[in-house]
């Protein structure tokens, strides 16, 4: 008996503020004009993607007390852009990253429900908690919560939002609402009827044990960075194993790593392009920045083409603000030193080696085969593709890889439903009246 191959899910990350977006390329367009968002979203919809995804940052990143100026800077506010995109797309899911630490449930639940209504069931919410105290300086709340408190707040936030989304009866009658918990006290009446897809899709991004537990209890999708086959499988097993204690089935939570890709006519050409791309992404200045991010000290006197510093990292450095650090600095530094010694690499070469994340590199056929293999092997349910060019970075993928995935029978050839939940194969949440 042959079983149908497992279907994969695809989403498109808008390449904006991150250190993989190549802005120096002559084809690089605006990261802020609506036309860029429209182009990428329409391309994703042409490729029948599940959703379009926007990241968030609530403070400009800083390095050594100065605004970081090497990567793309500046982005519009996500939910507002997605509402506009709802006017120029029909089926594509529209997912916004919105912080649970610097928002309030009533207001955000209302904004998300509005997007779901105005897009007729296509809204998604990536719940992040902020890894950085300095973000708070733009908000009344100010300051910071430790990780555990951020996640208990996020969990109560999502629970409260779900109660609000369920507060009108299915026939459209508002009912009084009350939630009194540790973090929130909300009382009154919600302003919108139940969403077209019941609740907007909830996505989680965050990797600690607290983050994974929160995802297992409350999320529909996880956005992860575990992009290699081995790390992906380990993560997959870990997270899916956490679902049962919340009474959930493994396929109620989709795991979607964020991954890059580089296409060429041949595998060799793609590899060459990928190497050139890494040199563009990790300029000498960016290499020094990455190094200082680990070392937590000013290393401006070092040569990016020279050897790694002898001095040890400063573990609790405030040097870098607004970026997730790469892990325990001493351990990372030890790994980088070993790598550099072993292969005789300069600072810049070491950074390139050490920070290259899983990217699917090859001809369209190779990339399609690998994507399908990852899903078949239980390393992911699908992918959030991170193009490295705005706004044309997805064009080739949609034109050349998607048809091959369809040929393999692992990706849809037409949208079968109209809501984001239906694309993801997720049931509508039961109304808890």
């Amino acid at each position: 008996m042959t079983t149908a191959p497992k279907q994969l899910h695809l989403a498109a990350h808008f390449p904006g503020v991150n250190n993989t977006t190549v802005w120096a390329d002559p084809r690089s367009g605006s990261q802020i004009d609506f036309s860029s968002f429209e182009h990428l979203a329409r391309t994703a919809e042409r490729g029948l993607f599940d959703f379009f995804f926007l990241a968030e940052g609530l403070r400009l990143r800083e390095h050594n007390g100065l605004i970081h100026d090497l990567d793309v800077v500046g982005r519009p506010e996500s939910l507002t852009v997605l509402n506009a995109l709802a006017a120029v797309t029909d089926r594509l899911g529209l997912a916004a990253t919105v912080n649970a630490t610097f928002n309030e449930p009533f207001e955000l639940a209302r904004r998300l429900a509005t997007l779901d209504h105005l897009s007729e069931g296509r809204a998604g919410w990536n719940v992040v908690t902020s890894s950085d105290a300095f973000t708070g300086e733009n908000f009344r709340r100010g300051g910071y919560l430790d990780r555990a408190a951020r996640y208990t707040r996020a969990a109560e936030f999502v629970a409260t939002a779900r109660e609000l989304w369920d507060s009108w009866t299915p026939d459209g009658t508002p009912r009084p609402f009350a939630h009194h918990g540790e973090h929130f006290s909300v009382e009154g009446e919600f302003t919108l009827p139940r969403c077209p897809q019941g609740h907007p899709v909830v996505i989680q991004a965050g990797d600690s044990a607290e983050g994974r537990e929160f995802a297992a209890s409350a999320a529909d999708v996880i956005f992860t960075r575990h992009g290699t086959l081995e790390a992906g499988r380990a993560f997959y097993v870990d997270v899916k194993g956490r679902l049962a204690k919340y009474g959930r089935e493994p396929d109620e939570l989709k795991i979607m790593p964020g991954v890059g890709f580089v296409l060429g006519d041949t595998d060799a050409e793609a590899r060459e392009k990928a190497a050139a791309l890494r040199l563009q992404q990790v300029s000498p200045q960016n290499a020094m920045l990455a190094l200082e991010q680990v070392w937590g000290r000013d290393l401006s006197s070092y040569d990016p083409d020279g050897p790694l510093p002898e001095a040890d990292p400063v573990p609790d450095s405030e040097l870098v603000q607004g970026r997730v650090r790469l892990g325990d600095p001493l351990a990372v530094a030890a790994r980088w030193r070993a790598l550099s010694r072993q292969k005789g690499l300069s600072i810049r070469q070491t950074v390139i080696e050490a920070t290259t994340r899983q990217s699917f590199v090859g001809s369209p056929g190779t990339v399609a085969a690998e994507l399908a293999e990852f899903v078949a092997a239980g390393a992911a349910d699908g992918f959030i593709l991170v193009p490295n060019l705005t706004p044309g970075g997805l064009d080739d993928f949609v034109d050349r890889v998607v048809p091959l995935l369809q040929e393999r029978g692992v990706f849809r050839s037409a949208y079968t439903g109209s809501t984001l939940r239906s694309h993801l194969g997720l049931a509508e949440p039961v109304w808890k009246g």
Partner: protein
Amino acid sequence: MPPIRPLHLAAEIGGPPRYEPEHYTALARLAEQGALDFVTLGDSFARPGPDALAVLSRVAPATRRIGLVPTVTTTHTEPFHVSSAVATLDWVSRGRAGWQADVSTTGAEARLFGRRPAAPAAELWREAGEVADVGARLWDSWEDDAEIRDTATGRFVDRDKLHYVDFEGATFRVRGPAIVPRPPQGRPVVVIDGTAEPARQTAARHADVVLVRATTPERTARIRDDVRRRAEAHGRHPDTLRVLAALTVDLGDAESAPEPGLASGPPLAAHGTYYRGGPVDLADLIGRWHRAGAVDGFHLTPITPGRDLERIVNGTVALLQHRSLFRTFHPGGTLREHLGLARPANRYARDHVLRGERA
């Protein structure tokens, strides 16, 4: 007699709550056909309905010229979020965004957030002024040419053209800079209903467009003069303000007025001045008030949006256009251009120049 200034017209497109985008898009397009300066969409947390700023973002790509002015309240929303969302509406509409600032005074609204108790209007309007102030600073916190994409040095932005606002209000602080680059209009248009104290004080200081609800051209003119005087006291040139008379209009079924105009009596409705009559008489009234120099224009709230807006556009506006009192098309692309308001210079860029001159 002072020269007649161009007439400005705006309309509210809210009504009983609707959740389908097509409803709002159709109304905004209708207003756009009439070459109106802008549409507003009222909002509050206290009654059913979708988020107004979201609705007008949804409308933006489906329209081309009309200004889009949602109500955004400042009492429970983070000032930083307000500024980002309004700036983004300006980006997605390519320079057509405004923002009607309002406050939430009730205990019912406060209980939806559970963060702070209800407060007196005067306090909340002072805070709304601070939110408008920090919003403008955040919009300026990126100089227009901050993005340099300098491949020689590897720098995407010139960090000397990004500015911390370090704003300290009575109830909040914001460090800045904005995450959204300076919007197309420099600063989206700020609209405030300045009929009553203490909103009038905030309007005179921070608004580009002030709405006034009064029953006679004389009363309206008095308030207009007052707002302009106060604006001047805050160091503004009064001609950088537009004062629009706010009327609720019921164009019923009649072609002409069963109750001619407003001049005859007190307002009939709790929310401002209520006009009931035909589209032709409304055109006469608008022409009369405007000729008298009482106002820069009108903000009309149709009692029944679908029906009355259609009559306003195809009746009243068409007639005003025929009489050459109102434009027949939008000569510019941005809301500021419709209103004849200049794109504001960036306060930080000015500092820059001054520093340069001194050096």
